[in-house]
């Protein structure tokens, strides 16, 4: 990408073609993310993209950036480390409902509390795709799978409500089949100063025969169309997220709060660029304390 021209989504494509099942919602997520980055004109070298494990985690290999495809459930701590070491980077993490809400649930809650300036995309297909269709933390109760032949005995986890309770500063939900809206949500999330979460309803066309594109179309609504809804009202956001029935899409909550980097009083110069040989005075002062 040359600095002279306006970037397009193609500038964020890798030579490796994306490899999900035909019709998978994850294609929509990837495409929206590329468009959002192009719109924000963030150079690929300044993007650190950290993904978890599962079908969704494969997205790390499909975005032209400094990509990190680590251990299952650990995308957020890695992303936090990257951001703190170099706050000049745009840091984005992505993963599925299993990666973020099951094995990585502890990190999810604590990253929300810290509020680092990172964007987290949760690709929610309500099933475990890569291991062939077991129930996930967001699967409906009663969902019949190979590991829950009598129906899923667990209640689904409400990830966004959990995040709101933990002190989230930006919550949005999109639908993989609504590309324009999804680009707008991702753009706002990346621009948000703090930890921004975009949960994307991303249907699994192979294993989840319950939460299909058609099912979502019947069950979602745009929260912006609700009379008088203000995404700055925490109580209203909690109500919208926890009310039984239709699933709200759009920006559900946002607030401004100092980031983790601010609260750690990180210097403007990224830690990764510090001169490591310039602290002789500090070292000598420390040594004196042990005399």
């Amino acid at each position: 990408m040359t600095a002279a021209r306006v970037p397009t989504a193609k500038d964020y494509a890798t030579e490796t073609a994306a490899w999900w099942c035909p019709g998978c919602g994850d294609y929509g997520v990837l495409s929206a993310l590329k468009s959002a980055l192009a719109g924000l004109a963030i150079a690929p070298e300044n993007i650190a993209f950290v993904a978890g494990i599962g079908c969704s985690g494969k997205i790390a290999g499909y975005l032209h950036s400094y990509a990190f495809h680590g251990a299952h459930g650990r995308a957020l701590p890695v992303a936090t480390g990257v951001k703190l070491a170099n706050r000049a980077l745009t840091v984005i993490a992505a993963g599925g409902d299993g990666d973020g809400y099951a094995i990585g649930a502890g990190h999810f809650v604590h990253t929300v509390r810290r509020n680092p300036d990172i964007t987290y995309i949760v690709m929610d297909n309500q099933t475990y795709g890569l291991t062939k269709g077991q129930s996930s933390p967001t699967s409906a109760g009663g969902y019949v799978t190979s590991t829950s032949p009598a129906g899923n005995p667990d209640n689904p986890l409400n990830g966004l409500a959990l995040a709101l309770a933990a002190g989230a500063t930006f919550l949005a939900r999109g639908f993989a089949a609504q590309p324009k809206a999804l680009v707008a949500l991702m753009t706002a999330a990346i621009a948000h100063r703090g930890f921004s979460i975009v949960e994307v309803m991303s249907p699994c066309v192979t294993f989840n025969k319950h939460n299909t594109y058609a099912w979502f179309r019947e069950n979602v609504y745009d929260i912006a169309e609700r009379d008088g809804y203000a995404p700055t009202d925490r109580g209203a956001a909690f109500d919208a997220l926890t009310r039984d029935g239709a699933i709200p899409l759009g920006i559900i909550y946002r607030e401004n709060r100092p980031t983790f980097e601010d609260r750690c009083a990180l210097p403007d110069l990224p830690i990764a660029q510090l001169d490591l040989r310039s602290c002789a005075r500090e070292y000598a002062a420390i040594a004196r304390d042990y005399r």
Partner: protein
Amino acid sequence: MEQTSLEVMFGGQGGDGSLTTGDAIAAIFKRCGLAVYTYKDFPSRIRGGHTNYVIRAGSEPDYGLADAVDALVAFDLEAVTAHIDELRPGGFVIFDTSSEALPARLRRPDVHWHEFPLARIAKDELGREIVRNTIALGAFAALAGIDPKIVRDEIRRTYERKGETIVELNLRAVDAGERVVAQAHAQPEQRLAPLPIEDGRLMMLGNDAIAFGALVAGCRFMAGYPITPATDILEWMARELPGVGGVVVQAEDELAAINMILGAAFAGARAMTATSGPGQALMTEAIGLAGVLEIPVVVIECARAGPSTGMPTKTEQSALNHLIYSGHGEIPRVVLAPGTVRESFELTVDAFNLAERYQLPVFVLTEQALCQSKSTVTLPDLDAVAVERGKLIAGGSVTFGDYQRFAPADDGVSPRVLPGVPGGMHLAAGAEHDPAGVVSENAANRKRLMEKRMRKLESMRDELPRPIVHGVADADIAIIGYGSNRGPIAEAVDRLCGSGVPVRFLQLRTLWPFPDGDIRSFVRGAQHVFVVENTFTGQLEALVRGVVGPLDILHGVRKYDGRPFRPIEIVDPIVRLTHAGELAAVQS
């Protein structure tokens, strides 16, 4: 009589101030020009429970505990009950009689008893029971024949920050301690031979030295989760890192901590974590990830007695196999083991340089008996510490398409590019990948990349910290050991050699890659080889056997009760098995 070594134990209840008093005594010994080693034996709780603090001072640096305790300052009966058998014949006890009387059955006739109502004097004469410890210190110093001026100077230094009133109170407490000794017409039990004071010596914990070493080595990012006995390092870094532009994160668990440092190191910061057994177990998966992603990280293991919760405040060397073998799949890794406080500093610096030059995880393995013990130490010249970052592309740009993150290399190390550098975009995948980073399960590629990574173990051989040979190089009797056992083994060696029984001791400082060549040449010609370690199963001995094969002359000297070796526990089995006692009378 003048002594060259003195070991004093302060025993009481957790939280009663024994540790502060012990620290003051340690500082006083240091002012006397002596070498100091301290050992804390405390339960895993904050208040209550028997605790004791041992301070050993002598002319020889880097020793550990002595064979026996010379002086016991017992603040309660439990301290006497628990430790009276550890006193050497001719030693002395200061016992606080304020609330308990001493039963006759405990009154060993071969030690001297000094019984004073310390707490009552503190309350009645000084109005503050809390200064009981300082009164005990004054009494001990008088009985040990320590220069009263040095005692007062140190008390002033210790309490200076709390204001003149507190300083005065404690100085009066010292007076009171000396007075009770004088009133009892007790003569000094012994006189420590003071040494010329060496300027420039410091006194710090092994953990302080590790943290300081990391800082000077350029560590600017630490993530950790509090765990005994590693917490000191997290606290130290939390205090000092912001001052040099770095940051510390107290993570939600060890999984987060290790993954955070992977992220920070990937982005270009020198990063580390510090943990102990249970936390190390949680970090295992990410260590494999660091190996395959070729990310330089430093992981400090402050080993304690396991398994599971084990004994959190007690020492052991059973984490060795975990550090060397843990994880599914195979990665190159390094395990370094300091044996002194100075080495704790130096090997931590080495760990950062090796990690970055060879792009792999490096462990620094220490144990509770070293990392939570204070010693007098002379650190290396801080200005001369080298920061070697290896093949790093931290600025400029590279040509996209030409640059390959995992490019083949003779030494196994490919140039590492940092995020932000134009053209260097790539995928760092825990899945097997090709030189460009693209995920690949191709058989030939797998073989090539596996060999590339593992080749580092060979190419780094010459740069790893070498073992140190102590004692007589061609002696018939040989000892192999590492870590906190360096002190007691070195003392056992000095004593045996001094008694006419030549002994050689190989102190290992790199435990992985295992120094096969050094082991092989060290055991050559030995009639007996003793492997000294704090494990039940003989983890180090098994590694040595892996190099030297079945050998009748190999003997294990093992201790796994959570306490460090005393030199006599190493001397005794050697004398017994080699019949060295028939050759010379070994003085203890």
